[in-house]
């Protein structure tokens, strides 16, 4: 059960001719795929397209009606390879993943797919995780399109444009026998809007109308001499076919303006930001009517040279608004213009930042400076610059008034996260065995590298925690500890890490976070996920897809299960693994279900029980304010959002005291840490009994009487609020 359910929203996928869809970008893309007659879809989760996978899964009944196969792929490589269906057969299909990291993983299959070429339309929906909110290295997918000759669509970020690009993308793919990528930036994936729908189309072939005979064509095989022929075909036939299709179908758009001695060329995804910037300095209105002409590239690869020269020829200067680096588009536009001997000046990087997201602010600065320098005809510069200056000054004033930068809020482990205790344990184990190198991995556990833990020396990629320890391990005094999530384990860690470490007889320690899902991406299921939720510890799963059996299968001998919340046990197990004389790989499976998923599952159960009058025990932790001395060591070993500070109510003290708020889920870490770290006695655990039984009440009464009498005898004149 994924974090977000689209069960209700997927009904929108049934809309037909004349209806209006209203909803999120991701869902609109799915609808567009169905309107395009796909026969198969799949992918691998990751922001910002995690929800696309959730939508596809929640839409299975509708997909089944249309005969569309939905595949939950093992990795992006698997998803890209799935597109092989379109090589020989006239079936359309789509795959999705997070980019550029996912595209990196997929690139082997992508190269082969692009070289062989496709018969049916093949589309990759790329979630371009770049800029604010991104969780990955900052690169562009554009390079992949160029190196493999895959066409790159970058639609204007509104639903009608996105939907149109999906539909035309399939036609472009088929017209040029080439797969296409649809690039969606984070905010476009989540943009909420409307479009006029069409009926869904059934694919020529599908689960309901299967292909009778397989087709064999050596020309489609990636081996010489076919590969040489394929490369030539790309350049001589497919590329020109694509350029012609893009031009003939008007996929790129020109918006005329009165100040036509200058212009702006932008990626489709940047169009709204450009309009907004022009609007802010008084050169455009809310409907996109702009004084400055705009050439909007909804297809950023390949470019259409005749369109570029036609737009630029009559202009003194154009501004290229191209997010990310290197500046492929600016370079290409320059080349096109110079080759056709058009001398229009191309401005771009320099006025706009070379690196980093093109936020509203960045584009505003770039556009304003371009207008200032180029002086478009008929534009009165004074009010334009005055408006711009006013905005710049206001921000500077606010910064000055604050006087000190606002502290950042990096992401961190959620309240009660089962992975947090493992890093608390590592911090404490360090004190016992000395500091050790940690090969971190991708997943929620990467947050260990942030405060308060700062654990993890390298991150090399998803599932690669163990693989990235193989070089440094033999060169370190102490054993290296590698971390891997269960998601990364099934994605590739089992082979690239575990099997290989056993094969090489590498001596190291691997901690596998078994939390039951790919939690960071929104709780998608993986092979070891348990139906209905939860995790299984130590016992083999009935269907055989469990982590321990996989480990044994590839020859791991030293395996320990440990409940993550038992900090002392985790420390002990880590110490054993670090100090045992036995060589080879030592694997600790750290069991603890993702607390977000767990709470979502058990909360309704508990409240139903309470409602039915059943006895339910609720647990949470707290801090005795008068025992806490305010040094906050506990926070430095935890970082739990529910463990914070509050102003002291003691007039004699000044520093804030630790405090547990009502979000506490009673995971037990606070108590474990105060024990394991010999921290301080101010923590307490409170078990609150809802709907107490007769026995509960009788015991409580007895305790109250005995304890009450002793308390009174001890100090009858005790003052209230003495502390």
């Amino acid at each position, binding site marked *: 059960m994924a974090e977000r359910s689209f069960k209700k929203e997927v009904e929108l996928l049934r809309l037909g001719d004349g209806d209006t869809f209203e909803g999120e970008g991701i869902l609109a893309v799915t609808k567009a795929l169905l309107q395009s007659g796909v026969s198969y879809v799949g992918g691998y989760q990751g922001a910002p397209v995690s929800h696309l996978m959730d939508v596809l899964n929640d839409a299975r009944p509708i997909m089944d009606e249309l005969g569309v196969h939905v595949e939950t792929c093992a990795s992006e490589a698997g998803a890209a390879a799935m597109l092989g269906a379109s090589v020989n057969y006239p079936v359309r299909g789509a795959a999705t993943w997070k980019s550029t990291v996912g595209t990196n993983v997929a690139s082997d299959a992508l190269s082969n797919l692009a070289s062989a070429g496709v018969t049916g339309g093949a589309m990759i929906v790329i979630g371009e995780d770049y800029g604010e*909110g991104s969780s990955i290295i900052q690169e562009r997918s554009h390079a992949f399109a160029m190196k493999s000759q895959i066409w790159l669509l970058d639609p204007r970020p509104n639903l009608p444009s996105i939907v149109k690009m999906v539909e035309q993308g399939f036609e472009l793919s088929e017209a040029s026998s080439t797969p296409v990528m649809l690039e969606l930036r984070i905010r476009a994936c989540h943009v909420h809007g409307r479009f006029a729908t069409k009926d869904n189309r059934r694919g020529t072939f599908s689960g309901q109308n299967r292909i009778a005979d397989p087709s064999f064509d050596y020309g489609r095989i990636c081996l010489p001499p076919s590969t040489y022929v394929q490369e030539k075909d790309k350049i001589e036939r497919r590329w020109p076919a694509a350029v012609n299709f893009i031009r003939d179908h008007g996929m790129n758009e020109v918006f005329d303006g009165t100040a036509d001695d200058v212009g702006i060329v932008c990626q489709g995804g940047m169009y709204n930001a450009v309009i907004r*910037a022009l609007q802010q300095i008084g050169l455009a209105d809310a409907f996109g009517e702009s*004084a400055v002409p705009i050439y909007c590239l909804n297809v950023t690869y390949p470019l259409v040279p005749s369109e570029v020269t036609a737009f630029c020829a009559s202009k003194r200067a154009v501004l290229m608004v191209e997010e990310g680096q290197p500046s492929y588009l600016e370079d290409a536009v320059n080349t096109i213009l110079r080759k056709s001997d058009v001398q229009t000046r191309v401005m771009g990087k320099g006025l706009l930042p070379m690196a980093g997201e093109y936020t509203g602010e960045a584009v505003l600065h770039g556009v304003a400076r371009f207008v200032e320098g180029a002086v478009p005809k008929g534009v009165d510069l004074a009010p334009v610059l005055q408006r711009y200056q006013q905005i710049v000054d206001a921000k500077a004033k606010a910064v000055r008034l604050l006087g000190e930068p*606002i502290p950042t809020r990096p992401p961190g482990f959620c309240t009660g996260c089962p992975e947090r205790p493992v890093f608390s344990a590592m911090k404490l184990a360090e004190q016992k065995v000395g500091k050790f190198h940690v090969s971190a991995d991708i997943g929620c556990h990467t947050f260990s590298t942030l405060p308060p833990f700062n654990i993890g020396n390298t991150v090399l990629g998803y599932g690669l925690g163990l693989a990235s320890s193989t070089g440094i391990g033999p060169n370190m005094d102490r054993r290296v500890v590698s971390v891997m999530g269960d998601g990364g384990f099934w994605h590739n860690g089992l082979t690239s890490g575990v099997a290989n470490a056993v094969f090489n007889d590498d001596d190291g320690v691997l901690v596998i976070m078994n939390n039951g899902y790919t939690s960071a991406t929104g709780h998608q299921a993986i092979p070891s996920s348990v139906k209905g939720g939860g995790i299984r510890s130590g016992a083999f799963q009935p269907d055989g897809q469990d982590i321990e059996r996989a480990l044994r299968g590839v020859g791991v001998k030293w395996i320990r299960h440990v409940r993550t919340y038992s900090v002392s046990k985790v420390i002990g197990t880590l110490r054993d693994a670090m100090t045992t004389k036995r060589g080879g790989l030592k694997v600790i499976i750290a069991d603890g279900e993702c607390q977000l998923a767990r709470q979502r599952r058990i909360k309704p159960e508990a409240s139903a029980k309470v409602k039915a009058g059943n006895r339910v025990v609720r647990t949470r932790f707290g801090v005795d304010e008068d*025992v806490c001395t305010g040094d906050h060591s506990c926070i430095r070993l935890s970082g739990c*959002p529910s463990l914070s500070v509050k102003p002291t109510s003691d007039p*004699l003290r000044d520093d804030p005291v630790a405090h547990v708020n009502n979000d506490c889920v009673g995971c037990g870490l606070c108590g474990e840490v105060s024990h394991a770290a*010999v921290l*301080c006695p101010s923590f307490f655990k409170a078990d609150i009994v809802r709907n107490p039984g007769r026995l509960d009440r009788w015991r409580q009464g007895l*305790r109250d009487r005995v304890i009450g009498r002793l308390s009174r005898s001890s100090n009858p004149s005790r003052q209230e609020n003495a502390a």
Partner: protein
Amino acid sequence: MSESRTTTVLIAALGGEGGGVLAGWLVDAAGRAGHWVQQTSIPGVAQRTGATTYYIEIMERAEGDDRQPVMGLTASPGNVDVMVASELLEAGRALENGFVTPDRTTLIASTHRIYAIAEKSAMADGRYDAERVRRAAEQMAARQVLFDMRAEAERANTVINAVLFGAMAGANVLPLPREAFEDAIRSGGIAVEANLAGFDLGFRMAQGERPAGATESTTVSDDDGLDDRTLTDRINRNLPGMLQELAREGARRLIDYQGVGYARFYLDRLEAMVKADAARGGTSRSYAVSREVTRRLAVWMAFEDLIRVADLKIRPERVARVRAEVKAAADEPVMITEFLKPGVDEVASLLPPAMGRWAIGLADRAGVRYRLNVGMHVSSTRIRGFLPMWLLSRLKGWRPRTLRFAEEQDRIDRWLAVITDALEADYDLAREIVVAGKVVRGYSDTHRRGIRNFHLLMDAVPACKSARPPARAFRTLLDAALSDPEGDALDRALAALRGEKAAA
């Protein structure tokens, strides 16, 4: 070009606060009113406890005009009409990013604080000064609706995003009637009544009503007498007026901690300090040194040994406080479990000094001093768990004979002597040394490190005296001592101070 303009709304929230629901309501309300509306967000890892934003643009549809507006996907500085922040620091972030400008922005924010990790993990007080945000908001916002919405929401048994939504409606800055807002909540279908109550509360506040909880309770007890009249008289007679209230609080604390005799001892020490302070011009400096000593001396003298911890944990008022904190209903039993892990030091600290030192020495030589801690889960609300803690708390009379007591008194004496001595040299230096008293705190490792740092700081006072200005030199060391738990920063700062001296 047409004149119509979009209304832009930026919502800053923390992951898991319901910012998405709030944005969803607004989109729904705008849709109901027949307006153009677009919303974007950046979910992903930002949702996992980080700061996140939702951005919404709304535009009224002109009669007969079917052109679709081009709406922005990111907020731009100087282009935000309604800035909503679910917490004060996030309002500060919005200000810092230029999203609050005097020409157009209405700032709607809750003033409660949720501390960022750097703020709460600091060893002393790392909190961002909230006044900075308030001051900047005052000047930058065209209009502001600021109050503690979390407190109000709790009082009204509702959630903060409903209060924010109400404030957005009540501020009259969005082109939507109140009914559209309320219908959006109703169509959400979840906790409708509570949400509508919260909405109404926020609406009224934005219209200028005062929050119900505006009167803050004072932290200092207003009971100005002590049970012991002689002590009260003594305080009134011997201490300057501005110190009396704090001194009464201190004396009260120490009577509770040990007894009247111990409170007298506190006043002896305090009076000596006041005398030294007055001799060095304290009168004209509002007794800044004595004032700090009044507080810190009482806290230090009431050091947290096992007896004290046991005593505090078994008090009836403590059980009542816990019950309130965990929101237990009157008929619900609450079981409290304590996490205690006494070891050699803790046990030895209860023995007479000579015997205690011998025991620690023995354990040290055997290499087990830090390895014999016994982790105990003590259920203090059960008779079995309560009894040992109760017995421990009754050792109060024995306390003055313990090793811990002797050691703490020695340290306190050293501290007071160094302060008195510093008063001769530099008043500001003395004041910083008083603050340094707080480094001795915590339990076990933390406490041991604190003691180490305390002595290093006191040892460094002579070196600081020759630095210019001495107070700043000492403050640098103190900040270093409070900046990392391992004490590395203090070692570096001390080395730097020595280096400077050598160079001079």
